[in-house]
């Protein structure tokens, strides 16, 4: 019996990914864990797993919808992990997720990026939210800061990873071995 519990979440917004992409990723993940799997989406049509609606307000586009999960009113509770739909899961990633410090959100560490010489205002980041684990209703500062000026933040940062990195939020990274379980 699995002593851990977490919600697995797959984000599908807009038309970039199909219900088929969600269903296929969910089937892959079911090979490695029997946690409940939800699709966080604006369009549940043809999705075969349970769906959770992306909040309508404020309306966000693309990857920015990931930040909704840090809202104090996010509909799911407890431990959560989100997998992007464009990563290929080739081995069991859960051993590198289950034992993290769940008090802070965790991300993949793109450790090779530390050798890149970007200027600070590129907001380049070593974290990668292709897999993101957090405890619902903690760390709501991730949403709060974003909400203060959504329009500016979505112009300034080329994605949520750069936003999180630049804001210097408290976070952790998965063991680098998680890279051996996926193809980014």
């Amino acid at each position: 019996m699995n002593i851990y519990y977490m919600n697995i979440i797959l984000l599908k917004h807009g038309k970039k990914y199909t219900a088929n992409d969600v269903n296929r990723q969910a089937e892959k993940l079911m090979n490695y864990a029997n946690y409940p799997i939800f699709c966080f989406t604006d369009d549940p049509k043809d999705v075969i797993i349970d769906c959770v609606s992306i909040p309508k307000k404020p309306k966000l586009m693309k990857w920015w919808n990931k930040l909704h999960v840090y809202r104090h009113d996010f509909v799911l509770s407890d431990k959560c992990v989100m997998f992007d739909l464009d990563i290929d899961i080739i081995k069991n990633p859960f051993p590198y997720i289950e034992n993290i410090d769940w008090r802070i959100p965790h991300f993949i560490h793109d450790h090779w990026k530390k050798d890149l010489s970007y200027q600070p205002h590129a907001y380049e980041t070593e974290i990668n939210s292709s897999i993101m684990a957090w405890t619902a209703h903690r760390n709501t500062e991730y949403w709060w800061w974003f909400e203060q000026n959504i329009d500016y933040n979505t112009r300034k940062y080329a994605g949520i990873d750069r936003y999180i990195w630049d804001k210097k939020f408290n976070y952790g990274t998965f063991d680098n071995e998680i890279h051996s379980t996926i193809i980014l």
Partner: protein
Amino acid sequence: MKYIQPSFFENKVLPLLSFLYTDTMYGNQYDFYRIKDVLDQFSHGQFLCKQWAVDEVQQFIEPEDTIAVIGGWYGLMSHMLAESGFTNDILDYEIDSVCIDFHDKLKVHNNISICHQDGFEMFDDKELNGKEKIIICTACEHIDKDDLYEYMSIKNPYARVLLQSNNMHDIASHINCHESIDHFIDTLPEMNILYKGTKKIDDYERYMVIAK
């Protein structure tokens, strides 16, 4: 360049950028991206779409009309309106407090007032709704479609509105883009259309409707 003088860049825009660069070196009041954001406000595409708005809306502006610009960013729209010769009161609404600071620094014309407020809130206020006879928003791609519909539904029927959006779907801050001017109009409540048009700017299209 129509409705903008070279002296505006020399005396206002370039000093602001210089100030910002220095401020971001030693202070933490502003962040470095503001420099890019100001540059984007004064881009070729921004000039063209504001110039288009001034050209088309001027026939609908009476001398006694107050003009409201909603989501005025750093104030280019209101500046170009005043520069074109309008001496009407122009209220520029913006919710970003840094834009308000810089709009003040860029301001040339005394008939422009800058309000740190969501301009669409005027529609919820019986006293304010319709006080501004010309309402301009050239950034509808940043406004929730349902919100825009609701505001236009409750606007004073005597107020004329100029709305612009575009088809730049790839930009993550754009939450209300369209495929055509008619598609844009379809998302608005029924109004008396005074003007509608499409302008190709570089590799995208901008849509404008003036309605009552």
